[in-house]
């Protein structure tokens, strides 16, 4: 059974880390704002080249949602790395803290942080670029929820790689999701992808999210309902796989004594 006080303690440990460190605060507001400004201004410029549809809005919307999924997956592995860098993992897992409680605490914290980021960037996009993402209504909520789930699944995978290979692969914490950047159709339709990459995109729930978002912004029409089903089905599979890999990685790390010497 999950004990709420331990989940709370784990979250508090990392909330204190955010309060204490400048760079963790930058992750929540500053860098997403910089990205939004760069891509937003570039999009406005493209729009001025007499492009018919509202391409700027589609690019800005894609960017905001991509930042969301990217930040969530990174948060999960950075949370683990912070305790590894501090040599605090030993003491943490000497307590009755269970892997499920650690995971739950990490997921809730990443959710709260991402909510702050997306609220801020959505507000900024509305003020600076006249893009009101909230006008997309419930579909946007569905997309955001599914981006969270995919970010968590991918974050679990990244964390399990860190369990296995330690500090040697810490760069993965930031860069692994970038592998999916080109095939997710964040800024361009999936039809522009070469055939081989398009086949990969079919198996990524986020590619349906970004495609659907573009449909809504550019043509004000809903994507086919089968897309919504695919998003949910694929996400359930990815999340189940992510959690399994995470739990397996945790058990394996315990057998190898990784929590004692996490290098």
């Amino acid at each position, binding site marked *: 059974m999950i*004990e709420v*006080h*331990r989940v*709370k*303690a*784990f979250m*508090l*440990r990392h909330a*204190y*880390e955010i309060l*204490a*460190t400048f760079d963790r605060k930058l992750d929540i507001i500053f860098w997403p704002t910089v990205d939004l400004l760069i891509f937003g201004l570039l999009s406005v410029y493209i729009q001025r080249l007499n492009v018919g549809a509202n391409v700027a809005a589609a690019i800005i919307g894609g960017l905001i949602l991509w930042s969301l999924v990217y930040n969530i997956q990174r948060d999960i592995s950075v949370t683990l790395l*912070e*305790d590894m*860098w*501090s*040599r*605090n*993992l*030993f*003491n*943490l*897992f*000497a*307590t*009755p*803290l*269970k892997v499920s409680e650690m995971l739950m605490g990490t997921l809730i914290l990443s959710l709260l942080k991402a909510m702050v980021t997306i609220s801020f960037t959505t507000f900024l996009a509305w003020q600076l670029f006249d893009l009101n993402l909230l006008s997309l209504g419930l579909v946007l909520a569905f997309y955001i929820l599914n981006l969270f789930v995919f970010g968590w699944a991918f974050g679990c995978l990244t964390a399990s790689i860190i369990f296995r290979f330690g500090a040697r692969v810490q760069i993965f914490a930031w860069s692994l999701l970038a592998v999916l950047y080109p095939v997710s159709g964040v800024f361009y339709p999936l039809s522009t992808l070469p055939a081989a990459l398009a086949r990969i995109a079919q198996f990524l729930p986020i590619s349906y999210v970004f495609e659907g978002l573009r449909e809504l912004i550019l043509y004000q029409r809903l994507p086919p309902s089968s897309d919504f089903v695919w998003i949910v089905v694929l996400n359930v599979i990815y999340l189940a796989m992510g959690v399994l890999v995470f739990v397996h990685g945790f*058990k394996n790390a*315990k*057998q*190898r*004594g990784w*929590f*004692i010497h996490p290098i």
Partner: protein
Amino acid sequence: MDIVEVKNLRKTYSPNKNPVHALRGISFSVAKGEVFGILGVNGAGKSTTLNILIGLLTPTAGTIKILGKDFFKNEEEIKNRMNIATAYADLANNLSVYRNLKVYALMYGVRNYEHKINELIEIFGIKHLKDKWFGDLSAGERTRLNLSKSLINDPEILLLDEPTASLDPSIAAHIRDHLLQLQKRKQLTIIFTSHNMPEVEQMCDRVALLHQGQIYKIDTPDGLAASHKAPGLEEVFIKLARGEIEE
């Protein structure tokens, strides 16, 4: 009554490729309120034993009963009633002394943690460091904070892995006195590793001598010295380390 019972505990790293046998089937038991020392040269298996007992390392074979229950089936409940302080781990670098202790107090579900934290930092002489970050503390201050953390949940069993390694002699003596007082007052059971032989002689009721992953002998510090015709534990330890004792 035995509060810790370890039977035939084995730990082999990389069992399939270049196996390293850290523990080769050790057995011992510790009574409630006893201070039990585990001695041995570096690599003998002392820390491995403690790390298995606190659930950070999965053994290859063997059974552990703690507080009358199978450790691996009741890990959560048992770990709530234990704690550890080790010279080989730290707390969160970017958190203050107080915040670190608060996190661990909540982790163990300690009620009235404010009072408990203030009591511990007073005892260990780090009250003035309450708002200082862990990363800014000296080695000795970190050790004292680690010890405070290890008592945050009023454990019934305390594991100490070289707990006074970086302390000056006067603070180390103060901490030993406090731990012994606690042990007497609350019937605290302590399992202890150290390379400081006078400290082991002062604190431990019984000592297990560990050599190459096996227990060579368990006896009182005086008993070990007497059976090897040595003036103290240090001489026994050196003889064992140099292979001058027949196993």
